[in-house]
């Protein structure tokens, strides 16, 4: 896999992360379900996962950039595993609405594990790292849009979390937006 192909994959990964953050927002506003602290932490880890691809697009693919995403995915998987285990007892209805039979934290765990596997697979291709960093092409419009989608959604989460939690610790089982009541 060449450097150009690797960058295209990183742009694709940013769009996937943007879609994921947008889907979480959609569920929050359409279903009226406020994210719990662990749910917010999983969103945060998905946003943190995007920093590796952003660096890959700007500076060219490097193993250290993929390492950042791997670290974020491992912490994210730990957080979602914790939430899955909290609701694993038979008879526990789980937190929030299920989507295609799984709750969001289960989907998040699947997502983080998929990210770890995909990142490991991409790291197998050494040719992407051969190009000199100075020869790295300027990111195109599609890459710019992908980066700004992710930054915009993260900024929207700043506003949404501030509305939900206010200036104190978030409730374990939030029901109302603290700043709107």
């Amino acid at each position, binding site marked *: 896999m060449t450097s150009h192909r690797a960058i295209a994959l990183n742009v694709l990964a940013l769009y996937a992360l943007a879609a994921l953050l947008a889907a979480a927002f959609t569920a929050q506003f359409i279903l009226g379900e406020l994210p719990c*602290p*662990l749910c*917010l*932490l999983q969103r*945060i*880890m998905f*946003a*943190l996962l*995007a*920093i590796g691809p*952003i*660096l890959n697009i*700007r*500076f060219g693919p490097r193993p*250290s950039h993929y390492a*950042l995403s791997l*670290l*974020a995915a491992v*912490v994210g998987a*730990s*957080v979602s595993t*914790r939430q899955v285990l*909290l609701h694993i*007892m038979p*008879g*526990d209805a789980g937190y929030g609405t299920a989507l295609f039979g799984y709750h969001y934290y289960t989907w998040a765990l699947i997502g983080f594990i998929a990210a770890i596997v995909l990142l490991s697979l991409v790291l197998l291709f050494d040719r992407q790292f051969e190009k000199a960093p100075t020869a790295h092409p300027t990111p195109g419009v599609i890459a710019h849009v992908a*980066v700004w989608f*992710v*930054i915009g959604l*993260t*900024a929207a*989460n*700043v506003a949404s*979390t*501030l509305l939900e*939690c*206010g*200036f*104190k*610790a*978030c409730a*374990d089982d939030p029901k109302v937006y603290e700043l709107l009541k």
Partner: protein
Amino acid sequence: MEFTALFLAIAITMLVAWYGSRTLAFSLFAVVLIACVATFLHHATDALKLSF
């Protein structure tokens, strides 16, 4: 409040990764990751309301 701060810190790290220096982006990433792990451990030590 801590989650608002974390999202804000990530947005700033993203902007630095896109416009600023690589070293600063790495440093900010490290700070945010440590803050995330600390937040997780804080919540992971909450008493569990188990049903048995």
